[in-house]
Structure formats: C-alpha cells, structure tokens
C-alpha cells in the first residue's frame, strides 16, 4: 500500500505537475492530505457528537 502511494505520488509529480483546474492543485499531494485530514476530522467529530449529544442506551425510547 505504501508502494501504491509512492506510485501515485510519482504519477502526480510527473504527469500532473502543470495541472491547475482547481486552486488546490498547487498543493503537492493535496488529495493524500485531504484523505488523512478528513478521516481524522470525521472520526473526531463523530466521537465528539456521539459522546456529548446523541449517544444513548438502546432502550432509551422504551422507558
């Protein structure tokens, strides 16, 4: 998997160096960063929302 990542990065820097349809194409490895950051944000937001607001025991509505 690490290998695959390296391959995509090489592809990005060789084939797509001048690709600029979006502003974020200027950032190297943007999609990799977006992936890991989104992933962490989602997990932490989900845990936060779950623990603080919406988590209940399964019989919550039956009481």
């Amino acid at each position, binding site marked *: 998997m690490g290998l695959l990542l390296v391959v995509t990065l090489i592809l990005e820097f060789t084939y797509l160096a001048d690709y600029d349809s979006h502003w974020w194409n200027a950032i190297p490895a943007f999609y990799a960063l977006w992936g890991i950051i989104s992933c962490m944000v989602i997990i932490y937001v989900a845990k936060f929302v779950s623990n603080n607001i919406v988590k209940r*025991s399964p019989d919550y509505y039956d009481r």
Partner: protein
Amino acid sequence: MIAEFVTIPGIILMIGALILSLVPRDLRSSIFLLFPIAALFFVFTRPEGYEVTATLAGLDLVLMQVDSLSRLFGIIFSATALIAGIYAWHIKDLGQQLAALVYAGGAIGVTFAGDFFTLLVFWELMAISSTWLVWARRTPSSDAAGMRYLIVHILGGGILLAGILWHLADTGSLLVETLPQSTNIASILMLIGVAINAAVIPLHAWLPDAYPKATVTGAVFMSAFTTKSAVYVLMRVFPGWEVLTWFGAAMAIYGVIYAVICKDMREILAYHIVSQVGFMVCGIGIGTDMALNGSAAHAYSHILYKALMFMGAGAVLYATGTTKLVELGGLKKKMRWTMIFYMVGAFSISGLPLFNGFISKAMTVDAAGYAGNETAMLMLLFAGVGTFLSVGLKLPYFTWFDKEESDIEVKPLPVNMYIAMGITAFLCVFYGLVPGALYTYLPFQPVDYEPWTVYHLVEISQIALLTFAGFWIFRKKLAGERIIALDVDWFYRTPAPFFRRVFVNAIDNFFGWVEALAFRITDKLVGRFDNPMKWLNPFSKEENHARTYSPPMEMVMAFVILVILVFGIFLVL
C-alpha cells in the same frame, strides 16, 4: 386502450400482485419474477415520446410518458425488482410478496407518470406498501417504527398533494414539468413533499428509523425505491434549484458522520443512503447537463451497490440473527462469499477504480467543480472519505475481521441469496469496466466524461490509501458498542406520549364522556316515556299496563290514529 393501459410497467406489477394472490404457495416466488421481467420488456421496447393518456373528471392525465430520463430510472427499478425478487425467492409470506410488487410498481409508476395526479397515486401506493415490509418483521419495535414511517409518509404525501392542488389552481396544468426556481408557495410545498421522500435533512429521520427494522428482504427493496424515485422527481421538476446544492452537500456529510457513529450494520447503511442521496441532490441543485447526468448515473449505480450491501447485511442477519457490530466479528471464514460480494458493493460505493462508483460518483463530484462550485466539490470529497471509512472499512472490519474466529452459529444461506448477490456484484463491476453501457441511457447526450484519467486515478487512490491509514490508526475508536444514536426523530418521538395524551387520549375521553352522557339521557327519557298510558291518564296513581287497557281507551287511541292517517292522506293528495 386496454392493452396500452395494462402494459404500463407500473400497472403490470400491480396486476401481478392481483394474480400472485391466486397462485399456489410454492409457485408464487417463481411467478413473482415474471412481472418485473415483463415490466423490463416494456420499458425497453416503448419508444421515446410514447404516451398513454386518459381523462378523469375533466382533467387530462398522462399515465405513461417515456423519455430518456424516465427510461433510465424505469430500467433500474425493474431490474432491482427482479434481483430483489431473486434474493427473496425463499420467502413464502404472501403479504411481503404482494407488498414488494406493489411497492416496485409504485416506484416505476412514479417514474413514467406524465401528470402529477398519476404521480401522487403511485406515490401513496409506494408509501403504504413499503410500510408493510417493515411491519412484516412482526416485532414490537418494527410495528412502532412502521407506524412512524407511515405517518411521516402520509404527511409528506399530504404536503405534496397540497402543493399539486395549489399549482393546479395557479397554472391550470397538472403536467409534470420543470418548475422555475421561485419562492412560490405551490412549488415550495411540492419541494417539501418530495424532499421528505428523498430524506433531505432535517426531514430524513424516518429512513434510519425504519430501514434497519424492516425484514431481511424488505430492506433490499426499500433501499432502492423510495429515495431514488424522489430523486427522479427532483431531477424532473426542480433541476437547478440552488438550495438543493447546499442541502445535498450537507446531507452527504451528515449521513457519513452518523454512519461513523452508528453501531448496527443496517443502520450504518441506512444513514449512508442519506449521504449518497446527498450527492445526487447536490448534483440536481447544480443543474448543469453534466451534473444531472452525474446524478442520474449515480442514482443508477447507487441502487445497484446499495441493494448489494443491504443483501450482504441481510444475509448476515439471516445467518446469525443479529446485525450489531458488537456481537459480530470474525466471520471471514464462515461467510466468505457474503463478504466478497459485500466488498464489491463497498468498493463501488467508495468510488474505487474498476467499480461503477468510480464513474458515477466522480461525474457528480467533478460536475460541481466544473460548474465553479469548488466548496460543494470539497464537501462531497470530504463525504467521500467518510463513505470509505464507514461502509468500506469500519463495517466490514468489525463484521468479518477483528476477531480470529467467531463463535456465533451461522445458519446456511439459501442459494438464491448468493445468486442475487452475484448478479448485482457482476453488474457493479460491469458498469465500472464498461461505462459506455450506462452512458447511452443518460438523459443528456453526448456524455463526454472520461473517468479513466491519471488525475482521477491519483485523486482517488491517494484519498483511499490515506483514509485506510487513518482508519487503521484509529480503529479502536470505532469498535462496536451497545448504543443508539439520537437523531431529529427525537423531536417527535420524545413528545409523542404528550401528544398522544392531548390529541388521542383527550379526544377519546371526550367522546367517551359524550357517549356516557347520551346513554344517561336516553336512560332517563326511556324511563319517562316507556309507558304513554302514564301521560294519557295522569290522574290515576296506578300503573297502566297494555293488557289491562279498557276497550274505551282502545277506541280513543284508534280514533287518534285514524285522524292522523286521514290528515296524512289529505296532505299527500
């Protein structure tokens, strides 16, 4: 006329439901499959521009109208009815089979309806029949969830009807047509009515409430029809409404956050429908040709892989009796084929290369970018990460891996379940490898989107690889627990006992009180008037009984009756 009427694909399935109820038990599930095949045949053979019209109470109705958009949805709805019918082949429960046929017929009928009245009739049939698929589970929680589902949908249908009537009064037209973006009350009522069925937040809570409680096979039908027929109507009537862009993008994110929170297979998948429909709604809001093509293609692909994933989850429920992640894990040896088929669906939904989501999801997301809406595009990419994380990694990891070997006893699956999953998995891969097969049916031709670019491959693989890395690091945080997650249905479930007291019990009590009062008054009056002799002879203390009537008294009464009779006769003459 009759021949045209009965070959409307939606009507075929309704008639099928009638016939099916007369078929012997053991033949029923095989006969079931004939009707979707017939519907599929007529969907394919009716030319574009074909119409069936009728007149009812002075209104011109268009019962069926074929164009490229309705044909695309007609194909996938009929095909799903067929595949889900195969999946449910072992079911002998007549109620479920009839409900499923009527439900599919309703969805296909909505797709081909050329006027709002026909559309509404099929719409309501869909709501009622799908409720039965929840109730057929026959547990107390599914009874209650089905009732909530029905109430929400009847409310949605009512709002839609109000909008349609208002629209009719304004324009005098019932034809299904594109409405210009406006703050016209008629259009907004219709939009809300449709948005309830499309599970647009905050009107979505019925979906994750009801779907996880439906029967194993019912959930497969449900995952395909209700939301996607609403997506079709949105696409037909409200393309380019900007509000949909933002609601769609918000839905996409909201759905995946909840999919990460939830700990039950089918609940995760249900929330994930909200997220996926968000992609489609967002594309409809953007409203360019490419975005609408993307939404239509995504609906098409989504129905396939979501049905596949619900089949996988249903198979786990059938085999083990539970879908709670905390009780599952380590099934990789015992349910290997289910896992493989499920993973095809999961990879498709995550938009990985070689699968159909790679085409359709990317088309929708890129359409947002091309239309200059980069914020919406980033929101959708963000939601895409959550998709892979929740249904592509978390759900399968805690179902099939995590432990070495599960000690749950696994019931063998009927062969037809494997066949249905196999067909669907094949289609997911097929459309991923041969996107042209789907492109020819898209509403806006020519489709000039090329998914197989280096850029797109780099984009998808980097996102997927790093999402996997993130999951692996934090996987302990996502493990199964025994919890439920509150959602906006809290706002109607918690005060429900109060409202029941005010609107049901109080009214019941009032009627009860009036009834008791009426009986009491009757009782009093009867006591007073049961013996007219008391009144005719008020001066006597003794009780008068009929048998003691004296002849003179009888004569007086006979005379009175005679006079009344004579008067009556004169009056009539």
